[in-house]
């Protein structure tokens, strides 16, 4: 979007150390697994309305994050400014089509991007196929993206 910032961007954001990224990834995967978000049947039953587990998980997580960001942001202005600086994809009807494509895949393979990585650690070998699909899907999108998005 803004080519001028290209060099500034590289130096502006301090690099998060690898150990921290691994730690947060581990925590996120751990709780995804505990939430049953990595369980095919739980995901399917969410869509069939026979298990409300994941609706509850998402709702609680959203409330915790919203409250947390609000409380932390009130006391720490620098943090609030940082959060404000995160990119927000603009409303775009074409993106809504993308969300429908995602939903179809979510129901078919029972995975969201975070869950498929986590499943491998759970020992679910079948996730390898979905993981391969995920990378191919993202790559294909990147190649055709200019045609599908505004500007």
């Amino acid at each position, binding site marked *: 979007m803004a080519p001028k910032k290209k060099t500034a961007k590289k130096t502006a954001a301090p690099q998060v150390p690898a150990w921290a990224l691994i730690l947060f990834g581990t925590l996120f995967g751990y709780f995804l697994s505990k939430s049953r978000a990595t369980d095919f049947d739980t995901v399917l039953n969410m869509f069939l309305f026979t298990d409300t587990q994941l609706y509850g998980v998402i709702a609680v997580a959203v409330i*915790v994050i919203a409250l947390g960001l609000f409380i932390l942001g009130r006391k720490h202005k620098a943090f609030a400014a940082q959060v404000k600086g995160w990119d927000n994809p603009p409303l775009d009807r074409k993106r809504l089509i993308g969300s429908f494509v995602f939903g179809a895949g979510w129901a078919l393979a029972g995975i969201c991007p975070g869950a498929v990585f986590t499943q491998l650690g759970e020992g679910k070998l079948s996730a390898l196929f979905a993981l391969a699909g995920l990378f191919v899907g993202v790559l294909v999108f990147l190649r055709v993206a200019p045609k599908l998005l505004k500007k």
Partner: protein
Amino acid sequence: MHLYALLFSQTWAWWAGGLGLGLTALAFAWFTGQKLGVSGNVEAVCAYAAPKTKVAPSWRGLWFLLGLPLGGFLANLGHWNWTWLYGRMDGLSLGSFVLKAVLLFIGGLLVGFGARWAGGCTSGFSLMGISRGNWMALLATLGFLVSGVITAQILYKVF
């Protein structure tokens, strides 16, 4: 013994799982100053193979992605084993391994393609987006769910 089972083999109630995910995302924001998002990390890695894209290539997100299976491993340490079983997908694919592999590959492909088209997935949008009042994130999440419901009804109720 109970604590060991709770930590390393049982799954949790919705509120406990949601609390854990929410606090993790919050801590990530606090300590790194960044927005947690899984598919964006995948995209940054794939950007190396798509030179014309505007997305800046980065492999550092791989560290985060590497953590995810570690977490899945720890959460199931108490009864951990390799398995090809995949819930009701085994029934949907009529017991055919090849069909299961193909269906899972297509599903993953749709998830990857759709997530980046929408602009985020369940983590960056449904969790980090809605909680900040981002309308596109809310709209996309509704899209995920409506489309998932329709797809599941077709796959498991019609057939």
